[in-house]
């Protein structure tokens, strides 16, 4: 996927910005005490405030504010000590008050930055324009009855963070990488579960195209005139769809421009089934939301000490963790893969305790991830805990078992459970380094294959065959190094040159 797209008349650059709605992880809603749990019976988690009953007033849930600040800090963004909640007015049956409480001119979080690492090892910075808090709406259900629409207000009033980027992404790959990185950050922070299937993270993607050089000009001058007219694509709710939507939309705009047309600033809907975008409403049909400060809520003022205490409680974030892993000897690629999911990184850290980092990451990549994938499990569901895997790696390192036995051992504990060290003892899987036992096995193999013994004197390369036979004789438990050494002496083989 490249940053340009080829048209009849030459190259075009793709420029992408994003608005991500991330549901705040909190037990209660933004302005009421009702529960936010997903999947409850319709309208079972609705307070009088959420239902917009007469005389009901919003009261800010401090936990949601803390989560927004935490996210802002994780995005290396400016925390605005004074922010204002505004009303965004429009009529819709799943919007009980007839307005959504949001933040318009004075958001809680200002400019920040996210670094994304691309496959080719390049990393780019995507600017964050702002983050603001707002209420989610309820859900209209049109497919329950031929005559009626139903409304479920469980989601109404749940806190969302709207995170707006600058137009700093240049390809569908970068857009998807940004969203993955953002998801990793909020998951590390514990401020959003990042679950796109349940809609707790949703993205609107802004796409425009311009002639080569336009983007660089924009970065230099900050003038949006250097960029093309953008379209906002709504409802892009998976990583895969982002790539599809961007590719489709960029192509559509290039074709339009090359036919002599102009791109209309509009909101478009992504149809995942057809893999295309289609017009929802133009700029001129855009709602007039009549924003004004919500008189039921005072301006939100934050103490610097409180912000500082949240800053001090932040966990190690993906970028820092990645740097640490690289310093421990991992390749940048391995480090990036590990930190993408906090659970994977945590598992790795337990796995690598007291063993060689490279050995641990190889074990993870070659043995664990394959088995998880085969069984359709996530790292959190792994049947063999990190400590048990760590024990296996240690046993290989100190020569207790061979690499081959290690894989068999993992299969055993994966299927049956148990402590790997006990399994090794009970099943006699310990690597044989006892020269007596190895010598006995060698004699047995020599006695059974006199012809081969003659042959090897002429063809020393046949030694490998002998090693295999001896290993077989010992049930794979013999140390290959010890077998090699003993064979060399017994058969009087020359040193390999």
């Amino acid at each position, binding site marked *: 996927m490249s940053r340009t797209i080829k048209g009849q008349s030459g190259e075009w650059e793709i420029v992408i910005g994003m608005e991500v709605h991330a549901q705040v992880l909190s037990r209660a809603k933004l302005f009421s005490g009702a529960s936010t749990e997903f999947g409850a019976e319709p309208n079972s988690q609705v307070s009088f405030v959420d*239902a917009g*009953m007469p*005389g009901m007033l919003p009261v800010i849930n401090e936990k949601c504010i803390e989560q927004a600040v935490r996210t802002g800090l994780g995005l290396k963004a400016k925390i605005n000590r004074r922010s204002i909640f505004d009303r965004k007015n429009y*009529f819709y049956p799943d919007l009980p008050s007839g307005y959504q409480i949001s933040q318009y001119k004075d958001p809680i979080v200002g400019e920040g930055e996210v670094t994304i690492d691309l496959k080719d090892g390049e990393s780019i910075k995507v600017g964050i324009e702002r983050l603001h808090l707002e209420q989610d709406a309820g859900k209209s259900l049109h497919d329950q009855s031929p005559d009626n629409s139903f409304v479920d207000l469980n989601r109404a009033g749940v806190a969302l963070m709207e995170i707006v980027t600058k137009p700093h992404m240049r390809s569908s790959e970068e857009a998807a990488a940004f969203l993955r990185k953002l998801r990793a950050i909020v998951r590390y922070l514990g401020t959003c579960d990042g679950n796109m299937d349940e809609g707790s993270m949703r993205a609107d993607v802004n796409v425009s195209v311009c002639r080569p050089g336009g983007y660089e000009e924009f970065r230099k001058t900050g003038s949006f005139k250097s960029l093309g007219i953008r379209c906002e694509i709504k409802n892009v709710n998976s990583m895969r769809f982002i790539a599809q939507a961007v590719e489709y939309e960029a192509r559509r705009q290039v074709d339009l421009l090359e036919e002599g047309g102009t791109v209309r600033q509009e909101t478009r809907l992504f149809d995942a089934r057809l893999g295309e975008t289609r017009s929802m409403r133009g700029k001129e049909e855009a709602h007039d939301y*009549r924003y004004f400060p919500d008189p039921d809520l005072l301006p939100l003022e934050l103490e610097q000490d409180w912000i500082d205490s949240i800053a001090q409680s932040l966990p190690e974030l993906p970028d820092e963790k990645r740097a640490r892993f690289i310093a421990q000897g991992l390749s940048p690629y391995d480090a990036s893969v590990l930190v993408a999911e906090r659970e994977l990184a945590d598992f790795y850290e337990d796995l690598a305790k007291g063993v060689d980092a490279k050995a641990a990451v190889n074990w993870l990549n070659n043995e664990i991830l394959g088995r998880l994938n085969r069984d359709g499990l996530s790292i959190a569901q792994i049947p063999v805990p990190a400590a048990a895997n760590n024990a296996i790696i240690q046993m290989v390192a100190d020569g207790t078992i061979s690499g081959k036995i290690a894989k068999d051992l993992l299969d055993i504990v994966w299927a049956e459970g148990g402590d790997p060290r006990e399994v090794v003892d009970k099943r006699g899987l310990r690597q044989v380094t006892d020269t007596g036992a190895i010598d006995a096995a060698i004699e047995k193999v020599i006695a059974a294959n006199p012809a081969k013994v003659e042959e090897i004197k002429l063809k020393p390369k046949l030694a490998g065959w002998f090693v295999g036979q001896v290993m077989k004789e010992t049930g794979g438990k013999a140390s290959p190094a010890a077998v090699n050494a003993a064979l060399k002496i017994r058969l009087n083989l020359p040193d390999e040159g």
Partner: protein
Amino acid sequence: MSDLISLTLAEAREALTAKEVSSRELTSAFIQAIEAARPLNAFITETAEKALLMADASDKRRAAGNVGALEGLPLAIKDLFCTNGTRTTAASKILGNFVPPYESTVTQNLWSAGAVMLGKTNMDEFAMGSSNETSAFGPVFNPWRSRGSNTNLVPGGSSGGSSAAVAADLCLAATGTDTGGSIRQPAAVTGTVGLKPTYGRCSRYGIVAFASSLDQAGPMAKTVKDAAILLTSMASIDPRDSTSAETAVPDYEKLMAGSIRGLRVGIPKEYRLDGMSTDITALWDKGGRWLKDQGAEIFEVSLPHTKYALPTYYIVAPAEASSNLARYDGVRFGYRASNPHDITDLYERSRGEGFGAEVQRRILIGTYVLSAGYYDAYYSRAQKLRTLIKRDFEQAFEKCDVLLTPSTPGAAFGIGAKTSDPLEMYLQDVFTVTVNLAGLPGISIPGGLTADGLPLGLQLIGKAFDEGTLLRAAAAVETAADFKAKPAKWWTA
């Protein structure tokens, strides 16, 4: 029994304490008076049965030695306060059958203090009006009539049912709400006392919202002392209202006692309007002398942005109202148009049929001033003016403790006299809206009668959260005015 209903709240409290009367007897007397006064149309919902139950419960509590601050005292509640299990309409067809499953903080405070609810009083629809004529439940008639006249007059508004009920002895006192003068103006034209507390003093939780940054509940009573007693119970610090002040509630009855010697009283010169009636100017001058005679210092002050107050108010209040009233859409509760053919039709007809003309006018104004391209010219400038108006008061209060003004530009007018010209109606609030815009406390005290025998009020304005001083000054005016007149009870004839 008629002597029972003419008691003040404080007198009734004494009579109950002395066991001269029970809450049931007192309540029954008011229930009879309310039934007899139905021609006034002061109540939208009478709650006689509930009142007697509450009275009996109160008598039991008293017998057990458990006596609240308002124990057994029957009150009327403006129909803007949500009352759990009792219909709350805001005098609108759109909430005509709405029964809240929750109680407003202010009324809960009253019931917790032992008070008894007689019913829900009539008002202008969603508190939008100054004459009680916009009510979907019909106008309220002022108990007062001009001397020798049978013409029905308005009781003021929007708390017109409450003012009429207090003036006609249909309750000991009542609650009102005041967004631009809705407590003080009706009090003034009915010869009663009406207090709008500092914004944030009484919780707005459970009060049907009109303009959130201006709305404030307050007492309407027969005397200043009664207003002080009632406010002490109505006010509270409420975590359910983010704009509720975190200032402890003092005992206003205690604070209002004492002399006003040395009190600095400002007379804002900008309140002297061209063409003001001589009745009003004479009363205003008299008010100043009354205070001076009791040891106060009187001097002129300037509130230079006063002339912008009404236009500012009629941008800010409708803007907030247009948004606050969006929830009445026929979807979840309240009036719904029959057989809508789609969602837009449901909205348009439910709201078109459910809201009255004045409410629709204000929603239109509010929507307009918030619209793209007009916001800066109207709403944004109005907010700036509001800041300037607030600053005017701050500067004036550096020099004085209270301000004295008329409450209204005139006495009660005839039903229908001003309904054809909304601007003339809006002028009723010219002396009161400034106080809401600045969030300050204001009180209207009966000062005297016009030549035609209709009551007029004087307004005192105080510093934020200084209701104590305000009430003390009001008591001084009350003492000097010695207003004893009562309307003739023509409705019982």
